[in-house]
């Protein structure tokens, strides 16, 4: 299991909301990235929270100076709309990009991106919410229901060659009330690539529960790190015990 720090960024600040809304400033992205790296984080994901809305990503500079001092994999997400954006991300020092809105709006984009940059560079970023009995896909940072069912979408992104999936439960995001286990149970067996669970982590316990029950799951955590509820070093020690590999 990989322990991944998720930094949601708006106007040069790491922000944190609840269910991707009501955003609050929590710190400087570069300082936080360095802090989590020094504490032993496995990877970092930077997400531009307003990029899709304004059709551009503003984090290329941040990635560029982060990659000078942070030597673990860096993923850039938010507003990645074409091959040029991916190329710029990689040239700025990103190892991977995560794609959501653009993959929904142009059904050929994911496949093209995988062909050009390799599946290990392309992460499918998925935001989902339960509407009545069905899990539905959202775009633009949880704003718009696009009328696609989750299971159908997971099949699509895997068939198109994405190397990883980040799965965010919109309703659980930022609530620090535990991961959305119902959601994970629902989709876990249909996922054939590494999966990163995001949204809801409240403590070490939640992470260890996933680690013990879902062999293929990694976690992306935000609030628990920003509000010092999880100590990266201690948690990694616990994850390492009883390694399944």
């Amino acid at each position: 299991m990989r322990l991944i720090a998720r930094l949601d960024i708006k106007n040069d600040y790491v922000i944190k909301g609840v269910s991707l809304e009501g955003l609050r400033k929590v710190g400087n992205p570069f300082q936080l990235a360095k802090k989590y790296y020094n504490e032993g984080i496995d990877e970092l994901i930077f997400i531009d929270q307003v990029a899709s809305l304004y059709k551009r990503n503003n984090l290329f500079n941040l990635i560029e100076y982060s990659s000078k001092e942070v030597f673990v994999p860096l993923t850039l997400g938010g507003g990645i709309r074409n091959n040029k954006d991916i190329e710029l991300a990689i040239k700025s020092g990103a190892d991977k990009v995560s794609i959501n809105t653009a993959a929904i709006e142009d059904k050929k984009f994911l496949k093209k991106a995988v062909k050009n940059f390799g599946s290990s560079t392309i992460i499918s970023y998925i935001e989902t919410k339960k509407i009545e009995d069905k899990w539905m896909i959202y775009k633009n940072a949880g704003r718009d229901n696009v009328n696609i069912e989750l299971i159908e979408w997971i099949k699509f992104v895997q068939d198109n060659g994405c190397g990883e999936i980040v799965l965010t439960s919109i309703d659980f995001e930022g609530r620090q009330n535990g991961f959305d286990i119902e959601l994970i149970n629902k989709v876990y067996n249909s996922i054939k690539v590494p999966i990163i669970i995001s949204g809801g982590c409240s403590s070490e316990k939640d992470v260890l529960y996933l680690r013990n029950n879902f062999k293929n799951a990694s976690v992306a955590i935000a609030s628990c790190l920003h509000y010092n509820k999880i100590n990266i070093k201690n948690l990694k020690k616990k994850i390492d015990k009883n390694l399944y590999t």
Partner: protein
Amino acid sequence: MIKICILDYGLGNILSLRNSLKYLGFNSDYLSNLNNKFNFLIIPGVGSYSKASKLIKKKKYIDVINYCRKNNIFIFGICLGMQLLLSRGSEFGNNIGLNLIKGNVDIFPNKRSILPIIGWNKVLFRKNKKFNFLNKYDNKKFYFIHSYVANLKYNENILSTSKYDKVIYTSAILGNNMAGVQFHPEKSGEIGLNFLNDFIRNNS
């Protein structure tokens, strides 16, 4: 003085590699900016073998590799760069590598495994007199991201092994004045940086 050449044949995040070398205090540059004035060559790479094996066959790259062979300059491959040192890769058809170390690159053998392999796995280094400095990295974890693995013709070319889903596979290889690692030392935190530092200083 050590001067490192990064073979920028056009695939993957080479800025991170350059940054890590800079951070370690090495003088490095891309081939495009150098004029055969270096004493350590790194072949990086992330992406597809078929694409990479075509790109690297361009005359200017083959010339550089021949230059290294002639002048005893150490060649170090990382990830896809390591795989390119081998004879052949089977991703998207049959692709010929640099054939500097005998072996093939094939999909990870356990059909039911989750691929790509992504994450931090232990590396078990084999005892090797010339590479004694690797002892301190034995059993330490490095960052991996790959779906294809090296299958070597000769056991003597195996520098390390790792385990994923109960399958043991070659995670670092060794040849005459060359080596390669499947993992990314430049993305493996403090331990990876130390490894990179030791490896370059002991082979240049």
